């Protein structure tokens, strides 16, 4: 469209990864915010806790990402008032898809990974494109380092084909600590080659006992 020029969007980079296990989910993202060859800040969280068992990590344009996170948080507050309970992760997954598609012709420039526990307490990961196409998977990577990370996850966690009948569980066989270690490794590797990934890694682990956060320093160059 005529008025929609390059200036409307900015790519602030960043990488998001989520891995679902049998009774946990790991969501991680780096904390670098860049534009072009400049680093704007080294400590900017891309992860938003939306519900007790639902966490969203997004990379892309920071302005859109913050607007999206605020919108979803507000929608979740309304949901709590109306239903007197926390939204489930599959419900939040659908809401995020609808929210993105609502702006199909003026999209949020945001690449999302939603992680959490489903209604049975199993780990779940939803992965999106900018306009709301989404899929439940066992693991996913989005953002500037996704091309470096996704093949490694495929190699390490090969999930059963989605074509198989009856459908198999997509959750990974790894233990929680193994999954966290894998996430640390893939980010350390992506940081070596992707200029938009680095500085610090924020890891969020969701399991039956709640949400845990931990940090790992990454290369700063």
């Amino acid at each position, binding site marked *: 469209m005529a008025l*929609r020029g390059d200036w409307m969007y900015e790519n602030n980079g960043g990488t998001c990864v989520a891995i679902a296990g049998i009774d946990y989910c790991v969501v991680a993202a780096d904390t670098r915010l860049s534009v072009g060859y*400049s680093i704007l800040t080294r400590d*900017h969280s891309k992860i938003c806790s939306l519900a007790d068992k639902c966490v969203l990590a997004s990379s892309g344009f*920071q302005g859109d990402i913050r607007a999206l996170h605020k919108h979803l948080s507000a929608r979740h507050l309304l949901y709590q008032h109306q239903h007197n309970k926390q939204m489930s992760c599959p419900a939040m997954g659908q809401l995020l898809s609808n929210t993105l598609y609502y702006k199909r012709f003026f999209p949020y420039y945001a690449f999302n990974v939603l992680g959490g526990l489903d209604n049975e307490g199993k780990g779940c990961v939803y992965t999106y494109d900018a306009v709301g196409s989404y899929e439940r998977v066992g693991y996913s990577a989005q953002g500037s380092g996704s091309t470096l990370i996704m093949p490694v996850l495929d190699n390490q966690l090969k999930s059963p084909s989605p074509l198989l009948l009856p459908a198999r569980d997509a959750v990974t066989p790894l233990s929680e600590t193994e999954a966290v270690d894998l996430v640390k490794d893939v980010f350390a590797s992506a940081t070596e080659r992707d200029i938009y990934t680095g500085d610090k890694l924020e890891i969020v682990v969701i399991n039956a006992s709640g949400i845990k956060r931990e940090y790992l320093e990454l290369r700063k160059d």
Partner: protein
Amino acid sequence: MQNVEISIPTLNGWLLGYPVTYLFSNEKLKKATGVVSMQSLHIYKIYVTRYPYVTGTSVIAMKYKDGVIMASDTAGSYGSTLRYKSVERIKTVGDHTIIGASGEISDFQEIMRYLDELILYDKMWDDGNSLGPKEVHNYLNRIMYNRRNKFNPLYNSLVLGGVKNGQKYLGTVNMIGTHYEDDHLATGFGNHLARPILRSEWREDLTFEEAVKLIEKCLLVLLYRDRSSINKFQIAKITAEGTTIHPPYSLRTYWGFSHFQNPSKGAAGTW
């Protein structure tokens, strides 16, 4: 109005960048205009995505031991012409915040009208509450992002600093709504030239004197390398005690470096 064919302009065309109108024949006129006012319709061109005219260059700011320090020059450039030389680009907002602006000066002045109104209306509650730097930053984030969503941005990069409840705050927002906080910040050229210096020399426990020294080092680099900067600077500080915006002053420059006097010397292959 009886015999004329009427076309009703719509806002649907606004996003498309060209006017979209609905045409109605005379007999359908009554029905078509039944829902709208019969007053004559004035159509104004809606201007969006303007270019900046008078612009300010970098602002740099950082936290130090007891507050936040911010600095900029006082130039207002008209393209590459230095059109205005004493534009104050650092202002106070309420009791706990200072704001520094680069980019379009008129848009900054418009922003100051928004902020002054915001502060005034908040004061009128007279409930003892006041807006801190975090609130002002949040307000501006929404203003900037909303204006970009209307294809009508405020052409600025803004830096906000302040102290409230013993908490130092330093944040920035740009014309499309990207916003973040850090211990030290710079806009425009400052991001390339000043921040690397700040990253290697900044400490949390810098005294005011040390902070001024560091800021002046950055300003001097910008003065030498940013052609739209001028040697007339303002430094502002904000602490728990209050705000001070110092009157403009100049830095001592030295142009006697051999590479300034003869840039091609020692650079084989140039003229």
